[in-house]
């Protein structure tokens, strides 16, 4: 569907379909600018003398957000967290940390240094995610720039150039050059350029030439942008040899390379100094005393006037009575908890699929990538390990932690392997990008979210079909779950947004729920 539209737009732009294209009418984009860059405001009243008890199920980011905001307003909050730590999918792994994969417990053995950590879940914050950034500011979480796309990083595919790695900048420069040549040719034909005035066509052609670094005759003959073969400072730079268009087309990675810094990863990206869980620490500094750890919710019964909860801790079942409940336990785990939710609510819970994301990391004995002009960013390989991330932090230190695999869409391929098979796979994939890789890295860890205790998944998958968008059935389920049961039990978490897998979403789900809650509680006073 999306494909079709964009292709037609392209043709229309070239004037092929005739008539005047809406796309080139002046002024159509006016008035579409997004609003000001302020974080959402949360206008909540203070707690009254009654209805003050709030149960928060799960110490994920959305649960912590509710605890922080409502405690500040005088509510009596209790967080029940099943695991030994809060943060859920915000998980920074350091020396001595337990990776509680069911059937594959690991302890991290990285050197015990501040920069030697791995963000096994959330890792990057787009500058447009205002609310998570606002909390970082409020909670004194120091931020630094996260380098996502790095043109000096590598691209490797066994089907391209005999498996030889090339720099991202070579791939993208040449690809853009060839694409620009095609566009320039198209614009050159009198009939195609008809919808444009002479000066518009001139501007467009100018951009196309600059996009692809075309030569005078609008042909692409290689570009110094792809890097010098030799020279460049004291002597004239010598252009690197061009790579044939056909060769570049041998890898499907071109698609991700050309769009790596678009969409969510388009804005400047940030990360907390010292690990993503500094955000969790920031919240816990405020509400840490409200958390019960290794407290696993066993039942949730919603009544007319409140919610009765039980949880297991230290082999004992405890009751907890609350007036309101905010629940960020993943949908696929809630279905295993005794409850009295309405049938359509349960059906909706069952509808949501769980994600399968998988990450792995190694400690690097030395920062070998910096020796190859790489500072931060991502190399891509057309293997199941898919990516290698170089840390944006700890520059010029002795060692660093590299991400050795990230499958964000699938993940089961590695999840199903034993720990040893996983490591073997990442080492042999990495070897193709960095000869001698096996010698350069050590102390592996793997994080298969599908098997992580108390998560058993990554991000909620609402849509059965990605290309077709949300179906009517999915929208209906979503609305069912967004409404609080009896006005008392709120489901929160990034699972309760249409944009899961982002911390911003988790916070906004909590905001939605708290705003709704605020309207239901008796008005205290102005």
């Amino acid at each position, binding site marked *: 569907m999306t494909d079709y539209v964009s292709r037609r737009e392209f043709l229309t732009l070239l004037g092929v379909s005739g008539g005047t294209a809406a796309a080139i009418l002046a002024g159509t984009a006016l008035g579409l600018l997004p609003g000001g860059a302020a974080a959402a405001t949360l206008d909540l009243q203070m707690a009254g003398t009654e209805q003050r008890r709030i149960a928060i199920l799960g110490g994920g980011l959305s649960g912590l957000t509710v605890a922080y905001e409502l405690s500040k307003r005088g509510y009596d909050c209790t967080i029940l967290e*099943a695991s030994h730590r809060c943060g859920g999918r915000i998980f920074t792994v350091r020396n*001595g940390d*337990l990776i509680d994969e*069911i*059937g*594959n*417990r*690991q*302890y*991290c*053995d990285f050197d015990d240094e501040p920069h030697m950590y791995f963000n096994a879940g959330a890792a990057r914050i787009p500058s447009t995610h205002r609310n998570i950034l606002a909390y970082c500011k409020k909670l004194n979480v120091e931020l630094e720039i996260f380098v996502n796309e790095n043109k000096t990083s590598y691209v490797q595919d066994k089907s391209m150039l005999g*498996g030889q790695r090339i720099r991202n900048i070579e791939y993208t420069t040449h690809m853009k050059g060839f694409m620009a040549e095609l566009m320039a040719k198209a614009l050159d034909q009198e009939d195609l350029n008809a919808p444009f005035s002479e000066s518009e066509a001139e501007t467009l052609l100018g951009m196309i030439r600059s996009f692809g670094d075309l030569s005078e005759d609008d042909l692409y003959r290689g570009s110094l942008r792809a890097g010098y073969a030799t020279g460049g400072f004291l002597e004239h730079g010598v252009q690197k040899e061009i790579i044939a268009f056909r060769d570049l087309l041998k890898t499907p990675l071109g698609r991700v390379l050309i769009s790596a810094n678009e969409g969510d990863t388009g804005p400047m990206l940030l990360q907390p100094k010292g690990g993503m869980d500094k955000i969790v620490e920031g919240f816990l500094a405020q509400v840490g005393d409200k958390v019960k750890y290794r407290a*696993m*919710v*066993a*039942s949730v019964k919603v009544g007319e006037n409140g919610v009765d909860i039980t949880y*297991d801790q230290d082999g004992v079942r405890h009751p907890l009575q609350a007036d309101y409940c905010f629940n960020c336990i993943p*949908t*696929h*785990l*809630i*279905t*295993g*908890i*005794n409850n009295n939710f309405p049938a359509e609510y349960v059906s909706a*819970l*069952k509808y949501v699929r*769980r994600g399968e994301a998988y990450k792995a990391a190694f400690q690097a004995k030395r920062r070998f990538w910096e020796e190859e002009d790489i500072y931060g960013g991502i190399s891509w390989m057309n293997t199941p390990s898919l990516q290698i991330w170089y840390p944006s932090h700890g520059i010029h230190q002795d060692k660093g932690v590299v991400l050795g695999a990230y499958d964000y869409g699938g993940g089961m391929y590695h999840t*199903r392997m*034993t*720990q*040893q098979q996983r*490591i*073997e796979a990442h*080492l*042999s994939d990495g*070897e193709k990008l960095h*000869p*001698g*890789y*096996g*010698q350069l890295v*050590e*102390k*592996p860890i793997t994080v298969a979210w*599908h*098997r992580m*205790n*108390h998560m*058993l998944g990554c991000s909620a998958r609402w849509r059965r079909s990605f290309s077709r968008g949300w179906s009517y059935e999915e929208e209906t389920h979503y609305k069912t779950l967004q409404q609080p049961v009896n006005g008392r039990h709120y489901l929160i978490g990034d699972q309760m947004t249409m944009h899961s897998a982002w911390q911003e979403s988790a916070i906004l789900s909590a905001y939605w729920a708290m705003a709704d809650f605020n309207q239901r509680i008796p008005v205290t006073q102005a």
Partner: protein
Amino acid sequence: MRSLKGSFLTVVLLTCLLASINAVCQELEPFNDRYCTTCHGADGRGNEGVQAPRLAGMEDWYLIRQLENFRAGIRGMHPQDIEGAAMQPMAAKLSDASIADIVEWADSWPAEPAGITVQGDVVRGEKFYAVCATCHGVHAEGSETLGAPAMAGQNDWYLVTQLKNFMADYRGNHRDDSYGQQMRSMARTLGDEVGIRDVVSYINTFAER
């Protein structure tokens, strides 16, 4: 040539690396293997959300046999047995003491019948069930002597998955799994998925809900 040398190097280095991993795997804190309820739900009631069956009410001897089978790689090794493949690595880590501990824990769970989610032709299912009754009992109450577990009150979606797995040879294909092998041929008598649903909807009639 280059790549050959590379992969040889990888293998050698890997061996060293793996040696260092094992050191890391030593436990740094006391823990037990009571992980069951994360997947199998509170009180082992079963969780359709992750397709993990009800353990509450499962007979001790059956639980032990299945945990041992998983541990030994007799069950859960087929890549198409999706849930079995998730269970297998967990069981692989269990000691005999852990298994005994888990079984004791499971005994403490109230065995409430699971809810009904499967609809089928009960009359047709009853005919199919005649052959099942030989081992599993006329009320699907199970028989230790015959090594056949109870099915009454079990999650019906789980029974469907397992029958499909037996039928497709995803379960019961190991030479040391004699009960599973038996089930493979029995499952075939149901013909297809419709037959499976029919027999399961008949089994559903045994549990009081």
